[in-house]
C-alpha cells in the first residue's frame, strides 16, 4: 500500500513538474516572440495553444492513472 501511494505521488509530482517546465519554456518564447515581432503575437498565441494541448496530454493521462490507483487500487489492497 505504501508503494502504491509513493507511485501516485511520483506520477502526479513528475507530471506537474514536466508540464511546468514545458509551459515555462513556451511562455518565455511567447513573450520573446511578441517582443521581437509584435504583429505576430496573436498568431503565436494560437500556435502556442495548439502546442500546449499536446504538451500536457501525457501528464494528464498520468494524473488519471494516479487517481485510479489512489481511489480504486489502494482501497482494495490489504493494509
Amino acid at each position, binding site marked *: 500500500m505504501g508503494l502504491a501511494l509513493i507511485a501516485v505521488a511520483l506520477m502526479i509530482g513528475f507530471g506537474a513538474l514536466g*508540464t511546468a517546465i514545458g509551459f515555462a519554456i513556451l511562455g518565455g518564447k511567447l513573450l520573446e516572440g511578441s517582443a521581437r515581432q*509584435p504583429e*505576430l503575437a*496573436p*498568431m503565436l498565441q*494560437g500556435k502556442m495553444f*495548439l502546442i500546449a*494541448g499536446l504538451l500536457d496530454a501525457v501528464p494528464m493521462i498520468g*494524473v*488519471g492513472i494516479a487517481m485510479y490507483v489512489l481511489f480504486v487500487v489502494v482501497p482494495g489492497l490489504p493494509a
Partner: protein
Amino acid sequence: MTADRQRKTPRTAHQIARPPLLKIYGLQIAVVLLASVTALPLDMVAAYSIAIGGMISVIPNAYFARQVFRFTGAAYARQVAQGFYRGESGKFITTLGLFASAFVFVKPLQVFVLFLAYLIVMLLNAVLLATLKRGI
C-alpha cells in the same frame, strides 16, 4: 461572390489567431454524446463511462481555452502568458478533481472504457484544433 471576395482579402494575424473554440468544443461534446447514446442499448455502464471520460477531457480543456483567449495582442503579451499559466494550473486541478470524483462517486464504472473515451477526445481536440485552425 462574397466567399471569393473574402478569399482575396489578405487575413491579418489577428484573424488567423483565434481558433473557433465554440465549434471545437461543441463538436467534441456532440461526438461524446453520440458515442454514449450508441453504446446505451449494448451496455449501460459502458455508455455512461464513455460520457464521463469524454466530459473529463472536454471541461478542463474548455476552461483552459477560456483563460488563454481572454486577451489577444502584443500589448497584452504578459496577460496572455499569465492566462496560459492560470489556465494550465486550473486544467490540472480540474482534471484531478473530475477523475477523483468519477472513481469515488460513480460505481460501477468501466475504467478501460473511461480512459479510452478520455484519450480519444483528447486526440480529437488536437486534430480539430489543427484542422479547423488551418481552415479558417
